[in-house]
């Protein structure tokens, strides 16, 4: 158990140190292959560590693993607390990042300066894993900044392309504003609760009774929680690209390097969704002060409406796009909308078994959507990168040169539309179940409308890349490592569907042990246990 917690604590420092040592190494070593191997090894180690952590978690009956940084006990020092949801998403995110690094070893042929690229990409992974594993609200802010700065840098990686600069500045300006707002939110939380630890906040927000207007914003638990959650939600809906805060996504996608796009849609936006789930279900659950006067319910209702709007706007805009990656950006927005639709079924009027189905659908769809998207981006990247074109019209028919890309795109389209028997269908099936059994059939109608509209957008990629005859003679680049990536992911999305009884049962256990009352209790209890060990068993 102790060793397991040390592994949890070691992942982010390892990533951060190896990221920052690349500029130093670049003084001595100029060989591209070295950096490819170096970054790949580091991310493989991170993947191994996070999967080992998750295996320990299953072994220990999903009892959360707590790591104390510097040996300081929880409310005083920073802790990482990994419960079932954390552990699964950490494993998933490091898997996605590993695939991005693997793809980068092929992609690095087409970029000049590989050292800064890998520095930033490792920094991005540090931020993502840190945000997911952390058990401390302020450490979340620090990790969010690590993530964001790497993300801005990667968005502006092609500094000679005006569109990349424009996208990066739009993202970075609002991003900087948004993270500062989150800083204010943590300060407000600290002023009221006197703690920054998530488990401690969970306990205090559930126990605390409102003391009226004693401290007005500073000191009063209720008003502070309300203000803090308002800011936090705005911040993380920006990070996860929910409807009114989604504008940066297509811009960044249309100009960033291809593996970065995969990392963005597979991991960065999912991190945002994860934090919202953590705040709405663990920190400020149905019994916390946030439920005062139906505030939590009304916020969830608004998230639901925004989720529908996000799905519809994203899929409508997909139809319009000319740039392949911009189209995929809008498809991410539409899927994020679906995730928010199921995420927000935690209103007090909805029975808890429906909520369990909904949250299972959420986690399942995160995995399905992420892997399908990474598959899609790497297949399209294989076709588009050698030509340097991103315009669908100019790419037409090119995937006839690369049969593996055609297979990958086909599988990814089927996965993202949700055809039987691909994984995407089963998570949508769970969503429909949740919507219909919650007594809101109109939500199911909205879901099928979103699916119908977005299938038009996906067919556009299909139509542009696979069907038209190849007219222009074009040089074929060697596929190299992309073949194993695409084939493994294609098999994975099919297996996610064919083994969905087992997968969905497993995810249901994860949800039960993390987001449902039982899991939340476990999250709090392991915090208390660590505290007791420190104070000497009292």
């Amino acid at each position, binding site marked *: 158990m102790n060793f397991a917690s040390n592994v949890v604590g070691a992942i982010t420092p390892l990533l951060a140190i190896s990221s920052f040592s690349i500029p130093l190494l670049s003084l001595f070593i100029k060989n591209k292959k070295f950096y490819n191997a170096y970054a790949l090894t580091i991310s493989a180690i991170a993947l191994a560590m996070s999967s080992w952590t998750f295996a320990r978690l299953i072994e220990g009956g999903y009892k959360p693993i707590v790591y104390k940084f510097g040996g300081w006990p929880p409310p005083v020092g920073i802790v990482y607390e990994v419960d079932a949801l954390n552990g699964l998403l950490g494993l998933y995110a490091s898997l996605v990042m590993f695939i991005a690094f693997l793809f980068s070893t092929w992609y690095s042929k087409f970029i000049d300066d590989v050292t800064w690229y890998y520095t930033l990409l490792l920094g991005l992974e540090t931020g993502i894993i840190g945000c997911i594993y952390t058990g401390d609200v302020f450490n979340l802010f620090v990790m969010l900044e690590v993530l964001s700065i790497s993300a801005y840098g990667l968005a502006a990686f092609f500094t000679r392309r005006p569109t990349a600069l424009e996208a990066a500045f739009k993202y970075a300006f609002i991003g900087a504003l948004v993270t500062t707002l989150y800083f204010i939110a943590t300060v407000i939380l600290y002023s009221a609760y006197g703690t920054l630890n998530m488990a401690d906040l969970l306990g205090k927000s559930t126990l605390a009774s409102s003391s009226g207007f004693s401290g007005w914003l500073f000191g009063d638990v209720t008003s502070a929680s309300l203000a803090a959650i308002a800011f936090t939600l705005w911040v993380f809906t920006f990070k996860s690209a929910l409807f009114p805060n989604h504008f940066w996504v297509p811009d960044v996608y249309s100009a960033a390097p291809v593996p970065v796009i995969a990392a963005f849609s597979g991991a960065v936006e999912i991190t945002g969704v994860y934090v919202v789930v953590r705040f709405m279900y663990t920190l400020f659950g149905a019994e916390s002060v946030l439920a005062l006067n139906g505030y939590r319910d009304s916020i969830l209702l608004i998230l639901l409406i925004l989720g529908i709007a996000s799905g519809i706007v994203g899929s409508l805009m997909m139809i319009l796009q000319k740039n392949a990656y911009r189209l995929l950006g809008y498809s991410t927005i539409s899927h994020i909308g679906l995730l928010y639709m199921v995420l927000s079924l935690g209103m007090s009027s909805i029975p808890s078994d429906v909520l369990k189905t909904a949250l299972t659908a959420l986690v399942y769809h995160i995995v399905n959507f992420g892997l399908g998207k990474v598959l899609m981006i790497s297949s399209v990247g294989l076709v588009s990168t050698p030509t340097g074109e991103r315009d669908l019209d100019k790419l037409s028919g090119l995937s006839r040169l690369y049969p593996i890309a055609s297979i990958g795109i086909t599988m990814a389209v089927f996965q993202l*539309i*949700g*055809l*039987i028997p691909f994984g995407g*269908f089963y998570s949508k*099936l769970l969503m*429909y*179940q949740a919507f*219909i059994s919650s*007594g*809101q*059939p*109109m939500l*199911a*109608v909205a879901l*099928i*409308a979103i*699916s*119908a*509209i977005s*299938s*038009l957008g996906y*067919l556009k990629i*299909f*139509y542009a890349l696979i*069907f*038209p*005859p190849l007219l222009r003679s074009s040089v074929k680049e060697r596929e190299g490592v992309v073949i194993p990536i695409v084939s493994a992911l294609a098999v994975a999305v099919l297996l996610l569907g064919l083994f969905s009884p087992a997968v969905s049962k497993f995810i249901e256990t994860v949800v039960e042990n993390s987001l449902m009352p039982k899991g939340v209790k476990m999250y709090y209890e392991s915090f208390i246990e660590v505290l007791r060990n420190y104070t000497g068993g009292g």
Partner: protein
Amino acid sequence: MIIELMISTLVFPGVLFISALSFFTEWYLRKGVAHMQSRMGPTYVGPIGLLQPFMDFVKLLVVKEETKQKYSLTWLAELFGVLGISAIVSSLLLLPLSPIRIAADYDFLIYIYLLGVMVPIAMVAMSLCMSNPFVSVGASRLLSIVLIVEPAFFTGMLTPILIATHISSSAPMFCEEAYCKLPLYSIFYSSITIGSAWSNPIYATALIIGLAAVVVSVQAKAMLNPFNIPEAEQELIAGIKTEFSGPLLAIFNLLHNVELSSSILFIIYVFLGGPYPFRHLSIQGVLVLMAKYIAILTLVAVVRALFGRFRVEQGVWILVKYSLIPAIAAITIVSLSNFYA
């Protein structure tokens, strides 16, 4: 059991049955429309031309030569066509008609994804395998219709399923012994309980509205008049069928007809309770089933004969008006009445 399943999906209610039904459907539609327009319709093969569609199919499949063009991917088009047909045939396992039945909670979603998503995608992909600008135009027209039809069809079909589930959970007297353990929200459950819902005036209103919406959307899904924009038989050059010839055309026609007849079958079971008020495997039951099938088919034929073709944007808005909005209205009535009951 696996062998039974394999045979059943081939014979009844599998490929052979649904193909035969679809040939009959095509003959009936052609004959009916011709009758209404004072024409002859099919006459040559079989008694009153009954075997004409079948012979057309065989001729295209076996005798006619396939013309290949430089850019086409014929094998892929055939594969997509066959995939569409087998999606429809395997969805028939959800009906009470089938000797081997699959019923599960929410299985109508499987049906919707098989028929509403898989089949249009198969059709579009099939046509896009043939490179031709006119085909692409036809495909995009089909897609813009699918955009509206799919939610409308889903919403319409959801109406009886919600009603059936609500009836059984609120009034157990409808729950006959043998059926009590059956999964809710399933096509099977809806088909055995929906008959009793027609006596309730509120439910009957919702069902009628929903039925109308679904019939209109089936009309559009099957690309019959007035929604034959994507097919554009008369204009020939701007439809999705333009480049098909020989076996490929046969497969496409079969896919199209099978889709129409299986949609009608599902409508009969989900909305009208199949052989209700009689039981399956009784003579009256079979007769009632056939009568209902003919009735719905006649409705489709009448609509087809009455209207001319719409332009694309007209068609889409007509669909919104007469299919999507009524379907949503129906489902709203049901949810409201369930809420206040």
